[in-house]
């Protein structure tokens, strides 16, 4: 007789909902059978039995939510085994008991190491399954490939995920579990649109063909899905008068004319963002796993569109760089991005991003935050508009800015104050240099 506990199926999961009991009370259960489908904060995931027996009790009904570690069912030796109800599952109590229980299990497991490693699958103890077994190498490779280990099936002893599994997943494009699972659950919640749990068919009357996707595409899909699902975005819009900025740029470029270098509006906006972040360190932060991190360095990422997708090379210590350095480094990184030669460290460590679609004539847009950053600035095209200046209608060049902000890390007023300073710096561009 052993209890099944609500497993931890994702890093951020604290409680889970019993979505569907796949096994009914009295059903025979073999190790590896799907017992139950559990809905986490990210997706609906199948949860397998780790031992043979019979499901003798469903402690939690479908649709109910319980904490990680709470007993959700009981597996017994015979179909009519009677579970001991005396310890009826108070979720917190069980969760607290879990830690010592694990310690105890560990202490009672002095198995001869040579046998421990025998490849034959051995019965797993009941506290397993909270996080997938992986070899350290597999874990490192999964990180490098940007794969979610939860979605990968392990072929090693007792289901351990090993290098071969990661390489296979990377090749086949599986393993981005949250996205795939989320799709599945979306399909289930809209049964009219498409029959649930059916492999997607390409012969669907739309003359579709599957486009092979690379890793960049996969990472974009996963990270931006995570961002939109998990990050509570709010948006702040502001249009700036760009006359002074235009003149300022003209002056600088006239100075640089002999060198052949040229400063773009985007360079000015990137630099101004860094200056504004310095004034508002609260925006230069991240909400990660329930913790708020304030970053000491200001690293602004610049979204670059390349053939394979969107990449965001990062200008480290943007606040300390001169305008010509920012311009040169941006051009250099964008070139590398187009050639697919960006190194991981050139795409990581960002604390804020700037995305500019002005060159396509877009007036304004709402950008998706690039986690774990707390904000992203979307920049529209510069347009001549008729505006009232000093009581007179005048034709002025204006740029629309829209700031997307993670409300977990930054409140509305804080974001607004940042955007106000950013706008004023751009309208009085000498301040960029301060």
């Amino acid at each position, binding site marked *: 007789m052993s209890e099944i506990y609500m497993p931890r199926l994702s890093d951020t999961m604290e409680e889970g909902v019993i979505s569907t009991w796949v096994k009914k009370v009295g059903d025979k259960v073999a190790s590896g059978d799907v017992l139950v489908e559990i809905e986490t904060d990210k997706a609906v995931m199948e949860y397998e039995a780790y031992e043979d027996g019979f499901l003798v009790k469903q402690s939690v009904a479908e649709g109910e939510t319980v904490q990680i570690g709470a007993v959700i069912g009981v597996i017994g030796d015979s179909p009519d085994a009677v579970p001991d109800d005396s310890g009826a599952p108070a979720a917190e109590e069980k969760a607290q008991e879990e830690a010592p229980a694990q310690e105890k299990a560990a202490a009672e497991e002095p198995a001869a190491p040579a046998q421990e*490693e025998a490849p034959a699958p051995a019965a797993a103890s009941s506290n397993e399954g909270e996080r997938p077994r992986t*070899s350290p*190498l597999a874990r490192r490779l999964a990180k490098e490939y940007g794969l979610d280990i939860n979605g990968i099936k392990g*072929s*090693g*002893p007792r289901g351990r995920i*090993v*290098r*071969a*599994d990661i390489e296979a997943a990377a090749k086949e494009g599986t393993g981005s579990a949250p996205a795939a699972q989320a799709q599945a659950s979306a399909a289930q919640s809209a049964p009219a649109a498409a029959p649930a749990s059916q492999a997607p068919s390409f012969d669907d009357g739309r003359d579709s063909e599957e486009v092979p996707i690379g890793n960049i595409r996969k990472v974009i899909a996963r990270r931006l899905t995570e961002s939109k699902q998990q990050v509570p975005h709010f948006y702040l819009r502001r249009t700036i008068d760009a006359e002074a900025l235009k003149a300022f740029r003209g002056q600088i470029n006239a100075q640089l004319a002999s060198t052949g270098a040229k400063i773009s509006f985007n360079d000015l906006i990137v630099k101004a963002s860094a200056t504004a972040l310095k004034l508002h360190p609260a925006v230069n932060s991240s909400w990660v796993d329930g913790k708020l991190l304030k970053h000491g360095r200001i690293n602004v990422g610049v979204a670059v569109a390349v053939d394979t997708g969107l990449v965001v090379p990062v200008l480290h210590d943007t606040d300390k760089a001169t305008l010509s350095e920012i311009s040169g480094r941006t051009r250099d990184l964008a070139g590398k991005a187009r050639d697919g030669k960006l190194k991981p460290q050139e795409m990581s460590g960002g604390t804020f991003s700037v995305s500019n679609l002005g060159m396509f004539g877009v007036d304004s847009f709402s950008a998706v935050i690039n986690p774990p950053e707390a904000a992203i600035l979307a920049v529209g095209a510069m347009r001549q508009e008729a505006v009232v200046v000093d009581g007179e209608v005048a034709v002025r060049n204006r740029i629309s800015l829209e700031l997307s902000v993670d409300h977990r890390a930054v409140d509305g007023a804080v974001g607004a104050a940042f955007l106000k300073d950013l706008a004023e710096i751009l309208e009085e561009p000498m301040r960029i240099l301060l």
Partner: protein
Amino acid sequence: MSVITYRQALRDTLRAEMVRDENVLVMGEEIGVFEGSYKITEGLLKEFGPRRVKDTPIAEEGFVGAAIGAAMLGLRPVVELMTINFSLIAIDQIINHAAKIYGMFGGQTSVPMVIRTPGGGGQQLGATHSQNIELFYSFIPGLKVLAPSTPAEASAMLRAAIRDDDPVLFLENLGLYNSKGEVPEDYAQPENDNVATIGRAAVTREGSDITLIGYSRMATVATRVAEKLAEEDISVEVVDLRSLRPLDRQTFVDSVKKTGAAVVCEDDWLTYGIGAEIAASIQEGAFDYLDAPVRRVAMAEVPMPYAKPLETAALPSIESISTAIKETLSAVGKRVG
């Protein structure tokens, strides 16, 4: 290159060092008139006389102590202990004196001595004469412990040991004395440059699937395992530790970073053994590169049986090491024969 035995490599190198440096002397039980239980000192008494080739009483503590004193005063004694099992009688002299004097007396005197001694089982010598207790000395700061596996290594490392200013325990192996291998033509010349660098392991065979680590006799067994598994298309990289103290962790950690898996084979016992230190060092140095836990193949946890079939069963074998390798590889999804 010429091919000679491990025994001859030791004997000729010892002689060459005695010719090169008149401060080098040998002492031990039955090493003079009888020319050594394993004939490593054959001919030395005749050539160098009783002042430099000392037959001692059966009193290890006494003659190891005498050698320490001689070393402190400037000689370079090479002591033969008939087997490592008898070092237990001299262990206080080795651990509490030879290893400590340099540090405890503020570097006023070093102890440039060598203790040559064979370990190893498999010769039906019973439980008290078949042990691999080099761990006791590998554990002690202040000592150096060398464990050559081939004639060429034996020659270069004995030369290095004699010329080193610290006390060196030089581990030989009963099962290796008759093994043969290539040595440089001039290995027996008093003046030559075939001096090993102490504290270096070596990749003695390159491979890509798994790292197999051994020392002394087990390094040669490891090579045979690799040769056998190559026929089954399994590529084994062999690391010969060569020096147990100082231990060259970098070489085997780098190898494991390349292969992602490791097996350690050792003639000593598993629990607290040399392999435990290797496995711990691998997880410290190559944790994120491991695709499977490090396996250790060691002697059975019993005093060595006398009966031949039991003795054979107690020792690690080509078969038991091959099995460990295949099990480890199958755990990471690599094809096994």
